[in-house]
């Protein structure tokens, strides 16, 4: 109806305006001859033809709208949001990890579980800057079968340079490393049969180890935020409804080199510093700041490895890592109350796995080599007693087997 009325008006106006186009074809009405062949009124000459055209146009428009809508919701095509690392990190999040640079390339292996789920989920994502800096993100289940001695993960990710994320989270961050365990419950380590397996963690490492004891707070905060986003996204993908809040505001400041007193090695009151471990010009003592789940004291770190590490792991999920090892070294087993725990001492390390009210707690004294067995034997019982008191697991008195 509208169309015919429009036609009439158009007819009038065209009559007034022009009179060329007289080279006639008898069938085409005069007013149409004046229009180019593609003019809609010429194309839609008749009502059936108009109807067909309207239908086709409508269908096309609908398809376009629908397609655009789907693309929008699915985040593809022009609506794609180039999210990195399994879709967890937006471009801004990635830029925050690379001093605002936006030319970061990403590659990834999706997070999947092996068919029987025996090793837990795993996946990897790599962020690479054309200037050479890169960040590797890994999702994996910590292997409780590993030994504490010289193990790379514990060395790097439980280092005193890292600060706990706080609020009961099992995770830590520094300016070069960050990790966070997927909280138990929705996914991650359920209770029951899996209670003896390690936690599933997502960890991040920047390409190189920093030998500097000072931690850059801004860089640390960026990694801490990113690792929480990665875990939140992983949980959401698995259908969990909870979300971990931004951890940065509740984290302690990064650790500083400790002014170590002779009768308070690693800041542990009453723990005398053996003469052999006194700093000789080089080296420093760095102790984890903030409350739990891990307190590590690294002394004289060289190429990422401390010459001596004293470590307390309060969270039973992480202490599980040392459960198997603590049963090793049977010949030098330490003695305690029957149900207080078990452990051993050997030339390069002492380990005590305590049964506290909160669950298993690990106390570890570990030297780079076995050159000072006497000092390890001196430190272990005192360290265990002092730390057990601090975390509320005292009194714990371990006695050592006769040396030899």
């Amino acid at each position, binding site marked *: 109806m509208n169309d015919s009325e429009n036609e009439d008006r158009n007819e009038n106006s065209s009559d007034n305006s022009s009179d060329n186009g007289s080279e006639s074809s008898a069938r085409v009405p005069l007013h149409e001859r004046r229009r180019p062949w593609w003019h809609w009124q010429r194309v839609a000459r008749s009502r059936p033809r108009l109807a067909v055209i309207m239908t086709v146009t409508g269908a096309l428009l609908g398809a376009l709208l629908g397609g655009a809508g789907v693309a929008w919701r699915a985040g593809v095509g022009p609506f794609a949001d180039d999210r990195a690392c399994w879709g967890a990190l937006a471009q801004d999040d990635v830029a925050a990890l690379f001093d605002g640079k936006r030319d970061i390339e990403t590659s990834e292996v999706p997070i999947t579980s092996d068919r029987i789920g025996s090793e837990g989920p795993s996946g990897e994502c790599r962020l690479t800057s054309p200037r050479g800096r890169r960040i590797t993100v890994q999702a994996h289940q910590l292997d409780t079968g590993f030994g504490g001695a010289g193990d790379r993960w514990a060395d790097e990710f439980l280092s005193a340079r890292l600060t706990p994320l706080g609020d009961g989270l099992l995770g830590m961050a520094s300016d070069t490393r960050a990790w966070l365990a997927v909280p*138990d*419950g929705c996914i991650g380590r359920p209770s*029951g049969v899996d209670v003896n397996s390690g936690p599933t963690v997502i960890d991040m490492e920047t390409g190189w180890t920093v030998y500097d004891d000072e931690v850059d707070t801004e860089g640390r905060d960026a990694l801490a935020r990113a690792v929480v986003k990665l875990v939140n996204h992983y949980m959401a993908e698995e259908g969990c*409804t909870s*979300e*971990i*809040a931004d951890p940065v505001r509740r984290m302690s400041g990064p650790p500083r080199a400790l002014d170590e007193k002779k009768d308070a090695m690693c800041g542990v009151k009453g723990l005398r510093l053996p003469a052999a471990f006194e700093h000789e010009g080089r080296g420093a003592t760095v102790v984890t700041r903030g409350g739990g789940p891990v307190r590590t004291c690294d002394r004289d770190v060289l190429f990422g490895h401390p010459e001596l590490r004293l470590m307390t792991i309060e969270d039973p999920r992480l202490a599980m890592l040392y459960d198997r090892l603590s049963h090793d070294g049977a010949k030098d087993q330490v003695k305690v109350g029957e149900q207080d725990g078990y452990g051993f001492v050997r030339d390069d390390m002492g380990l005590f796995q305590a049964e506290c*009210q909160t*669950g298993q707690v690990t106390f570890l004294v570990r030297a780079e080599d076995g050159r000072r067995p006497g000092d390890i034997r001196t430190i272990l019982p005192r360290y265990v007693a002092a730390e057990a008191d601090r975390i*509320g697991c005292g009194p714990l008195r371990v006695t050592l087997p006769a040396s030899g």
Partner: protein
Amino acid sequence: MKQLMGGARRRAVLVGGAVAVLVAAGAGTWATDTWPFDGKDTYCWGAWKEDSGPDFLSGDALDEDNAGRTSKETAPTPRRQRGRCTVALHSERADSSDGGKVVEETEITVTYGPAPKSAAERMEWIGGYLGDRSMPLPDGLPGATDGRQALLVLPEGCDTEDGRPTTVTLDSMARSVYSDNTMSGDAGLGGSQSVARLLVAAANRAMEKADCAPAKPLEADSPMPTLPEDDEDFFTRACRIRGLEFSEKASRDMEYQVGTVTRDLQSCSVRTDHGNGRYFDALMVAQPRLSALFDGATGSKAPARGWRGTGVFADDYKVVRADCAGRPLNVLMLAPSAHEKTPYFAAFANAVTRRVGCAPVAPGGSSR
């Protein structure tokens, strides 16, 4: 204007505009998953919506014949600080084994109001919600849940006139009634995380009705901690606490369950008869708002010689409150009075206070 735009053309523009607005609005509602007139039922003062997550609210719960969901509710008001709402599911099906009929019943109840006034009743009530397998609610909310029941203490603004805290509790019941017996089942609450959200949603609505809602609604977004361990039936020391020792012979039919162990809350339950009977339920509560639930029930003098703080040793429970690092710490033991359990209570009280770094409560303890 009239000349530029004839009646028909104006109509066309109006129709086109209306269509555009409708399409945009439709796309918006679709994209945001909102719909103004979806005809879905809401429950518990509008806090819960049909099909919004947990099974008991879903359409699937009503798939069977003769299935129905009913609800009842009384909202609290500024004058009457009590309320209750119940969502019940009822369905019937034929029992394939004997041709009889099986009735499935589920009932979820939310109660708004103060804790029970009677001390004995209140101690049992506190132990029921905070002890055994319950874990603290996320985001620092003063409360706990084990996935089947839950308790939340509301902010001070909702306290009763005599200063008692108001709480919101959630309880659930699910059972299948056969012709010859009854079995308990799963209420379809969707686990602890979901219960925490249901509880907080109901609490927020109830506080609005009672006119004591805080400026910012309560939230339970962070992951809910989960119980780190299962019950243990092979032991001589319960809950890894020194002094809770049992002979191998005595503990043969017993089991223990370690619940929460934090600075705010700790529980240890010891059961007899393979978990069916209570030997004791021991609980420590130091979180200030949860601690307020004990107000007025812990007596005015030491419960016995040598104990620190104030307390009451009654037939079915023992409770002591003492200062710990500037805040009151309460220890509670619920136990049938058949056996003398004061030594276990003393051991628990001193082990827990030592763990959190306070002076001992019971006689004979030593501090660190």
